[in-house]
């Protein structure tokens, strides 16, 4: 095996991706060239496959092999099944606007069910995020497939938004429509991509600091660009977290005053604290300040010297915020096509977060999207060349866009409630 063959074999077997991959390969090439070895490389350096596996174990941890990744969905499935057995009632938590719901019969219980539900959301999502994070580092066929599915999903959302614009305009111009609801729907759909991008950029920068890549120099332009991204991301994050605060911690904001828990009870006091004033923005402020603190500290000390606690804190925020953003965005904004592509994610009165099928879908979706976020991070934190190199994005992007387009169009062609059919329906009314 000559040096080129050895490197090729090693590269083919190496799962570790991103910038680290480039480093590993370049370092090995350097070693071979320094040692001037041209033959017997297998004998002197070792089997390339074994060497690649050793690197993967170091960089990908215990999820370095495909078989081990399969353990995660199995464990998640067992977790959901157990939850069904242990606490079946948690699957039927209804929102407060449902007159027969628990909120009207036992508000305290309802409130704590909500809290428990929100805590449990994070467990499968975090696990799925870890899978996605691992998958993002791989350069294998399964990653390409994951990226294709993830891009399909994003394409669906984008096309859905574009196709719904006429409908929103129509609704907004119609009297006797609850404008507020539609306004929020349009607004949230519009910021869908921006929010994810910004959260990713901000949170990943928070634990990577200013870091120039292997092959590009740190430039002033890049500094200004990244600062701008951070500022924009902070503003968006502030609003997103405020909205999430209201969703999670203010369950009685739309409940009639007489139906709320009595003043002085824990549930009521907590609800009132987060409903307005400083309480409404407190979680946003805490998160933003901590992320900036983390970011500034990382930037000054450099990633290599930063302490573990600081890094762990930033990573935790990244996972939690991604999870929260998903829970928030998918549940509120994607209901239009969710009935087709994700039938269990139908929205409205009952969220039923703990339904196994439901959260399994969301968990996997999060896992799928994390590779995309990782690629975006590469683009923003490192350089466009890394983005293209590490992602092999073109094939899955094209494939995903095509599938997404087909899915959305199939859905609309089989639905009775499309913008096109609205227009046709209106035309018929006018002509009659």
């Amino acid at each position, binding site marked *: 095996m000559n040096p080129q063959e050895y490197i090729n074999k090693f590269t083919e077997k190496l799962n570790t991706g991103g910038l680290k991959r480039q480093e590993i390969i370049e370092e090995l090439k350097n070693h071979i060239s320094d040692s001037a070895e041209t033959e017997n490389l297998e004998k002197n350096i070792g089997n390339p496959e074994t060497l690649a596996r050793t*690197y993967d174990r*170091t960089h990908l941890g215990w999820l370095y092999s495909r078989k081990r990744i399969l353990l995660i969905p199995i464990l998640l499935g067992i977790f959901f099944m157990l939850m069904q057995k242990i606490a079946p009632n948690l699957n039927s938590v209804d929102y407060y606007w449902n007159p027969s719901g628990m909120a009207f019969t036992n508000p305290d219980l309802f409130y704590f069910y909500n809290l428990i539900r929100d805590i449990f959301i994070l467990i499968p999502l975090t696990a799925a995020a870890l899978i996605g994070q691992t998958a993002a580092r791989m350069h294998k066929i399964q990653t390409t497939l994951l990226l294709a599915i993830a891009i399909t999903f994003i394409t669906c959302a984008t096309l859905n938004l574009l196709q719904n614009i006429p409908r929103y305009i129509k609704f907004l111009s119609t009297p006797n429509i609850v404008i507020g609801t539609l306004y929020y729907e349009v607004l949230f759909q519009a910021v869908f991509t921006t929010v994810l991008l910004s959260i990713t950029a901000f949170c990943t920068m928070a634990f990577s600091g200013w870091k120039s890549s292997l092959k590009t120099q740190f430039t002033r332009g890049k500094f200004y660009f990244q600062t701008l991204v951070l500022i924009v991301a902070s503003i968006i994050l502030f609003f997103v977290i405020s909205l999430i605060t209201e969703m999670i911690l203010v369950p009685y904001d739309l409940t009639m005053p007489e139906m709320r828990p009595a003043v002085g009870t824990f549930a009521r006091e907590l609800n009132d604290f987060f409903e307005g004033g400083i309480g409404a923005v407190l979680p946003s402020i805490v998160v933003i300040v901590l992320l900036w603190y983390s970011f500034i500290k990382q930037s000054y000390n450099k990633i290599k010297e930063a302490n573990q606690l600081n890094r762990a804190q930033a990573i935790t925020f990244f996972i939690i915020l991604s999870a929260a953003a998903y829970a928030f965005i998918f549940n509120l904004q994607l209901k239009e096509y969710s009935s087709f592509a994700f039938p269990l994610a139908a929205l409205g009165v009952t969220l039923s977060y703990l339904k196994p099928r439901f959260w399994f879908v969301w968990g996997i979706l999060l896992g799928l999207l994390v590779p995309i976020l990782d690629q975006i991070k590469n683009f923003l934190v490192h350089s466009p060349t890394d983005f293209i190199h590490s992602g092999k994005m073109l094939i899955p992007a094209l494939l995903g866009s095509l599938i997404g387009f087909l899915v959305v169009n199939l859905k609309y062609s089989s639905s009775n409630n499309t913008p096109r059919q609205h227009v046709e329906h209106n035309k018929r009314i006018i002509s009659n």
Partner: protein
Amino acid sequence: MNKELLKGHSELIILSALAKKPMHGYVLSEALREAMPDMFQFGVGMLYPLLHKLERKRLITGQWLEVGHARRKVYSLTKNGKKQLASQSKEWRAFNQAINQLMSRSS
């Protein structure tokens, strides 16, 4: 030579070598080859992943620098690495002393 014995002390060996001066992978492997007897030799398959592991643990840091006319990743000890080296050296001396005492008694 029992490979486990080498594995058990591999971190100490690398940290000790890098404490003398920062080195890139190939120079380090040559330095170890010269300093250590044959039975303690590190293969490339063990050396580089170990360097990466130590880098992840923040005990050493790698920087891409121009060495001669080529770019090489040069490793050096971090503050944590120096502390770790001091602590592991102390443990090693105590262990070594205890083993020596035991062996001298038995012989």
